[in-house]
């Protein structure tokens, strides 16, 4: 146990008392007797210090005393997945599945500098052009230029064409600063879990650009997006071409099988529609990413994105209107709907992205642990707590 609170003994042996669970109750659990696990969770919740205490250096020291010293993730070898299991059904079949080749990118030193072709490439500095050239190796290099799409519709050419815009946003509009890139493993499957905010998902875009610009070999984060976005004309095409993937179980498991960086915002839609009163406070987490990380034996890197909550502060969310229009949110911001569509432009706030130390739950819990809903919820709460800590320290 290295980076997270030690779970209690007898995790899955005793019945629960759902009325005492701090993380919600399991509706399928029999309500008999007390359970050490739930008691322990309650104890953990009561031990959580106030927001002010998070900033207390004394408390910080006490919090991390049990942890091992921070290590350079580059030197750590990521254990390969022992067995690829995509679904419960395929596990029942017992059929051994062939391990898929990991999608990797070469080191920058292995990429030859190339001449810029076209306006889009001329707008990108040479160093960044080399990084984009490395990303094209994610799609089978043997393929014809016209056929260079991966199974999810990702196209290196599309990323090259759209990169100047997002690079400009990254450098000059949001003026992103970042730290902790060494915590992102250089190869193998990784789940990057971050906080979400700001109505429009510029936080995800900035995190993708940041990771491409600050890792060697450059790593492209494949963001898991909501199904709703997949039904929007043009948006669905754009997302797919730049590497974003609809959040289904099969898609998530497939990306991890391929050894890719999967970026998730476990708050989901609740994150982007939180009002200004709730900014910098994480909403309840979805827990599916924990299951996939355990099954694929992938570390989880907590990521805090500071600034997204201020880019478009929501004063009020008209929920009945959103429901009637089939939209996730109907916001009132200081500029929207006052200025019409222009009011949806984000404010030029300064972003800061911080990558925390990876949480290697898979080193303690096997893939079968993903079937334990209480453990999964508990681990999700640990990730949430870590991200909240990073947010509180840096905003």
């Amino acid at each position, binding site marked *: 146990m290295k980076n997270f609170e030690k779970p209690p003994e007898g995790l899955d042996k005793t019945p629960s008392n759902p009325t005492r669970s701090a993380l919600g109750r399991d509706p399928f659990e029999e309500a008999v007797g007390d359970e050490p696990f739930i008691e322990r969770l309650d104890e953990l919740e009561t031990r959580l210090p106030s927001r002010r205490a998070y900033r207390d250096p004394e408390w910080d020291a006490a919090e991390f005393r049990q942890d091992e010293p921070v290590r350079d993730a580059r030197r750590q070898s990521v254990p390969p997945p022992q067995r690829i299991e995509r679904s419960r059904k395929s596990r029942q079949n017992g059929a051994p599945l062939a391990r898929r080749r990991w999608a990797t990118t070469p080191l920058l030193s292995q990429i030859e500098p190339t001449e810029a072709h076209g306006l889009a490439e001329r707008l990108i500095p040479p160093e960044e052009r080399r990084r984009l050239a490395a990303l094209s190796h994610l799609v089978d290099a043997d393929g014809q230029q016209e056929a260079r799409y991966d199974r999810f519709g990702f196209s290196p050419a599309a990323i090259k064409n759209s990169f100047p815009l997002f690079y400009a946003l990254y450098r000059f509009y949001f003026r992103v600063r970042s730290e902790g890139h060494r915590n992102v493993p250089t190869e193998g499957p990784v789940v990057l879990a971050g906080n979400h905010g700001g109505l429009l998902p510029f936080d995800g875009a900035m995190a993708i650009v940041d990771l491409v610009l600050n890792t060697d070999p450059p790593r492209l984060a494949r963001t898991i997006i909501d199904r709703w976005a997949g*039904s929007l004309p043009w948006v669905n095409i754009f997302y797919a071409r730049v590497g974003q993937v609809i959040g289904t179980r099969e898609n998530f498991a497939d990306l991890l099988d391929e050894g890719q960086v999967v970026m998730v915002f476990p708050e989901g839609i609740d994150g982007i529609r939180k009002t200004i009163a709730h900014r910098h406070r994480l909403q309840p987490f979805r827990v599916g990413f924990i299951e996939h990380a355990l099954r694929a034996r992938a570390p989880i890197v907590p990521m805090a994105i500071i600034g997204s909550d201020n880019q478009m502060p929501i004063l009020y969310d008209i929920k009945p209107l959103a429901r009637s229009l089939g939209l996730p949110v109907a916001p009132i911001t200081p500029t929207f709907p006052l200025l019409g569509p222009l009011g949806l432009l984000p404010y030029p706030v300064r972003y800061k992205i911080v990558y925390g130390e990876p949480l290697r739950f898979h080193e303690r819990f096997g893939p079968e642990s993903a079937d334990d809903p209480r453990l999964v919820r508990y681990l999700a709460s640990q990730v949430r707590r870590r991200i909240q800590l990073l947010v509180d320290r840096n905003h």
Partner: protein
Amino acid sequence: MPRVLITHADEPIGRRIVKTLFHDSAVDTIFAVGDAPPPRSFDRFLSSEGRKVIYLQVDMAKHRPISDLFHSARFRSARIDTVIYVPRHGSGAKDNPSLVGGIAERTEESRLLLQFCRETLSVRDLIAIGSAFVYRMPPGNANRLNEDSELDLDPHAPAEIRSWIDCDMLFHAEVHNDRLDVALLRVPTVVADGGYVYMNPALVGRLGPRFRALGFDPICALVSDKDVTLAVQAAIRTSASGIFNISGDQSVPLSVLASWTGRSSIPIPGPLLRWMSPATRALGFEPHEGPVDCAQLRYGYTLDTSRAEAELGFRARYRIGLARAGDGVLQVETTPTP
């Protein structure tokens, strides 16, 4: 050694399977049936020594012809033990009725074939090629689907998709038959050398422009016709029973695939799509035969083939790409993976 009956052997995928099995020494007899007279390419098979290939013209959508086939002395003497159901691709020729007694032709022939396979004791294996467009498509440009994914049971699904689903469910119901091993191979868009494309409802029928919903360009999983044949061979060898996704490693957007195969795809705003076919007909043009607007043509998918890998030993071996022909024109070519 298996003795095989192949339906729709006169159509492109059927011809490819007959050709491959003809050269497969593990196959004893090939009983090829089709709607049309034997294709010219069958001349050398039919005149070969040993008469490995027998071709008969049978309308598989009618009860009497198919009954006559299964009860004929020729069929009995051939002692057929494996039936390969190759479906009719597209909507069929114009002079053929698309409905038989109110049921889609493809559904009717699946039902009849299944009925006679059950009744014929010599038949032990039934291998059916179905479409992967039967899956329900949730929003998204690329959904990874496995064999357990939900089927599209929407009653408003287009007739073309509906007929594939009906066939799929007919074969699915017999998967656990004790006597008959039923293997259903769900294939996505099948591409052949020269830019021919089958089984994709957006691209069925003649060359020419197609309409698609504006703002949507679904990713299409591809498989070579040669890989489909390999999957059929694998199913014959293993006598496997169940449902298997069969797909290659490649996928391209619908617009790219349409341009590869000489069919331009014209984006039209979604609400106007349903009026495009009557409008083109009113202007004197023959409209596209397939469905123009359904979830399968807005949202893309790729297939998880891990079950076929594990149980059939199938792995796609052919790559699909553009190559320059002798006259300098780029055309689709399938080449073995190095």
